[in-house]
């Protein structure tokens, strides 16, 4: 699939004449992920902003890729949704034709190649995590197509606040409850200190033995209502 850029020049000319192109809804956001003993925990806040106005107070930023692979997306909302849906369906076809459960590294490679072919014009900031036959994996993928494989990552406008919490308390081989608490606290730091993030913390815990439909349940309240509400 070749990328076509004819419209970019037209848009450049048009933006000199007309005011500006309609702006996409950005999500501000704090997203993060951590690898623990036996799996991966992904976390995200739930505020979507359009400029300084909150467009959605409870949007879902953790997207399904495959039964044991999920992806959090920041920055432009449409880009993260469309990109993850496309890779999810391509990965399903790939899994059917190879007759194997999909690997996280495959999803990572597909995302990288797609984003690179669009040369940075598509702008999602992704945290991809999952469990496959080789164990738990966590990747972060940036808009130009570069990717990093790390034990803990944060992205979005609240990434500095969340990374401060991770750098303080991350340990390798944590237990599941400890990892969930760490991710919850990191996202909470982003929510309170970053104006682009807010509201609730969504968690997604992926392990080898958890059944698929328990992995990312929305509206299941876990823990106390935070003090700032």
């Amino acid at each position, binding site marked *: 699939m070749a990328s076509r850029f004819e419209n970019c020049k037209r848009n450049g000319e048009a933006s000199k004449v007309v005011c500006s192109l309609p702006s996409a809804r950005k999500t501000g956001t704090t997203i993060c992920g951590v690898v623990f003993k036996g799996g991966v925990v992904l976390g995200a806040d739930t505020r979507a902003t359009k400029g300084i106005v*909150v467009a959605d*107070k409870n949007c879902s930023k953790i997207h399904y890729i495959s039964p044991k692979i999920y992806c959090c997306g920041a920055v432009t909302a449409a880009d993260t949704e469309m990109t993850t849906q496309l890779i999810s369906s391509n990965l399903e076809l790939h899994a059917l034709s190879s007759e194997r459960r999909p690997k996280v590294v495959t999803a990572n490679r597909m995302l990288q190649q797609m984003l690179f072919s669009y040369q940075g014009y598509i702008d999602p900031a992704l945290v991809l995590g999952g469990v496959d036959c080789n164990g738990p994996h966590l990747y972060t993928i940036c808009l130009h197509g570069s990717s990093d494989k790390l034990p803990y990552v944060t992205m979005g406008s609240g990434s500095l606040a969340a990374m401060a919490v991770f750098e303080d308390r991350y340990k390798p081989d944590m237990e599941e409850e400890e990892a969930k608490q760490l991710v919850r606290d990191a996202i909470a730091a982003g929510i309170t200190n970053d104006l682009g993030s807010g509201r609730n913390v969504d968690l997604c815990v992926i392990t080898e033995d958890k059944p698929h439909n328990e992995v990312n349940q929305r509206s299941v309240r876990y823990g106390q209502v935070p003090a700032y509400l």
Partner: protein
Amino acid sequence: MLSSLSFGDTGKMKEYHYTGAVEHRFSPYAFNGGTVLAVAGEDFAIVASDTRLSEGYSIHCRDSPKCYKLTDTTVIGCSGFHGDCLTLTKIIDARLKMYKHSNNKMMTSGAIAAMLSTILYGRRFFPYYVYNIIGGLDEEGKGAVYSFDPVGSYQRDTYKAGGSASAMLQPLLDNQIGFKNMEGVQHVPLTKEKAVQLVKDVFVSAAERDVYTGDALRICLITKEGMDEQTIPLRRD
């Protein structure tokens, strides 16, 4: 890292050199957020503001109220660029003292409003980046609200919202206090208690949808008995 931005129209790499003047942009203004609201009743006035000071996506301070007491009967709410808010309130305080010493009486709300208009217009070509709303009691003891633009145009209102969430709050106030856009509703005059509750509800809504509004709400209720201040917590995210 190569990106499409470093390639010119012909497809060759653009030259990257520093000969010639390079323009650096410095902006003397910053936007520090915050929302201010004032309501005038029959014999009271309310000036309320949130207490969050922000810049970009960060929060500078969670406890920086934007209502400043000028006299026993007048409070001013200033939002916009915090540096200009501080300087402007210092200048107004100094002018109030000068007036008191030369005229042997305190300035009335209307007089303060007129004076502020001339102070702001004096900086017509390098304005104070401040959205002002004055609330207080006039000479007859009735509530008065004066709203300003950054260069000094002002008018007397019954209610006004200013600052970052003003576009969200003003229609709500038009409906609830001015009874606009409603049919067959009795125009009940606003009581003090109902007005304070309305201001609290309105700020809670603003904190939900505007990222620059939140942390806490400071309400100043001005009556002929004096000024009463309350602080109510708001969302901190």
